[in-house]
């Protein structure tokens, strides 16, 4: 198969506390997975483990059918973290942020045009709105042409229009470059087109892996997601 990253029975402990238990899944090339779960269920930890920032206490992660040094995995990932503590006056403009990833000229022009960010690219990053920031970070993550995009609650602090615009960019990327996407979110009222599976995580365990339309058939889904 076209496997891109696989978790084999991964357990993560921090100190005495077990944060993730027996996480086991395979992502194929081009998959678009939504990871949903309540606050503190372990979503961010799962992404950080995939990136190699956190090492599994048990189990293993295999990248492209090869056991990778963890250092390597993150070189193939584009990552948009959940929170970014950047001061309003931090001396970096939006364009600098995208350029961190050294994009090719054509790709950069394409992104600027299609993301409709021409007007904000010269603005200080810290002064952007939540939605503008997320688009810039997505542009940055995309600029290195990653195999996998890991997005941690990109809808946080966005209103519905800003989130729709973000999804528009994401779907555009999906069509154009077809990266594997693993996206964490709380919001199940909007499930983007092209999502092919939804993982539901509860107390550090993936309890459901379903097709998007099946999610609403789970009886207490709201309870699971909103605690």
């Amino acid at each position, binding site marked *: 198969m076209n496997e891109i990253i696989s978790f084999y029975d991964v357990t993560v402990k921090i100190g005495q506390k077990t944060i993730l238990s027996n996480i086991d899944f395979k992502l194929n090339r081009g998959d678009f997975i939504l990871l949903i779960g309540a606050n503190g269920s372990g979503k961010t930890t799962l992404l*950080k483990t995939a*990136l190699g*920032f956190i090492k599994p206490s048990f189990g293993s992660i295999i990248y492209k059918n090869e056991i990778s040094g963890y250092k390597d995995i*993150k*070189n193939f*990932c*584009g*990552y948009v*973290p959940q*929170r*970014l*503590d*950047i001061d*309003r*006056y*931090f*001396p*970096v*403009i939006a364009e*600098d*942020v995208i350029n*961190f*990833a*050294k994009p090719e000229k054509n790709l950069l022009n394409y992104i600027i045009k299609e993301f409709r960010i021409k007007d904000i690219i010269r603005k*200080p990053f810290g*002064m952007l709105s939540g939605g503008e920031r997320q688009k810039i*970070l997505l542009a*940055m*993550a995309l600029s*290195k042409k990653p195999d996998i995009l890991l997005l941690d609650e990109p809808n946080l602090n966005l209103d519905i229009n800003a989130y729709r615009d973000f999804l528009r960019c994401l779907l555009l990327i999906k069509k154009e470059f077809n990266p594997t996407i693993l996206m964490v979110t709380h919001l199940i009222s909007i499930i983007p087109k092209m999502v092919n599976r939804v993982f539901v995580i509860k107390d550090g365990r993936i309890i459901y892996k379903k097709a998007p339309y099946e999610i609403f058939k789970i009886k207490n889904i709201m309870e699971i997601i909103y605690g």
Partner: protein
Amino acid sequence: MDEVVLKSLLMAGLAGLSCGLTGVFIYLMNIPFIGVAIAHSAMAGGIWALIFNLPSKFLAFIASFLTAIFIGPITDRAKTNPNISLSIIFSFVMGIAFLGAGLLEGKNQLVTNFLWGNIFLSGWKDIFFHGVLVIFVIIFIIIFFRQFSVFLFNREIAATLGVNTGFILYFILFLIGIVVTLNLDIIGGLMLFALIITPPSIAYQFTFDLKKFFFISSLSGILGSTGGVILSFIFNLPVSATVVIFMSLLFFISTLFSPKRIRYGE
């Protein structure tokens, strides 16, 4: 020009430059207390080395670098708020420094230098050494500019963009240790920190461009320290005090004219 004046001005300029450059990292990593803790450890190391007749600059550096390594892991602002534990550490180190100073009281001019600095004592050798160091620092900043900027922006993102964040972090801490040690008996451990943190605070008022940020911070460092030395000569005042006061004055003036403040109304 009098040679002492010339040497003092040169040394002050270099001190301001090295502190202004290093200060950018401390400021943008938001770790002021680490700077203070490292400065005070260097001071303690230097003073205690005198008690045991060891090479004091070398021990000052070892002390500052050990402190840097010890507190390095808690500098990740995403994880903890390190300021409380750091303020305890730096009070502790300060206590050790003053204990040493008390034991040596009156016996050694060098102790006074470590506390208050003595820019007038700098020789050509010191100036040359400091100059070479500053050139190295500048070259490193230019070579690793992209790595430094994305590191300062966000460490996790930096890691996904192929930056060796551990190396960059310890390199920065190492740099802080060296610059602090070199400036210790010039500016003095007690006031050194003002020279490190004020220049980037000035730069912060003026630019959204990291390159310019480094430049303005360096320039403010040079202006503040040489201006302070000139004031000290003219009015025959203690030099470290005039440097720090003049530097702070530059900061207050810069806040009055700050384009960021004026434009964004804060």
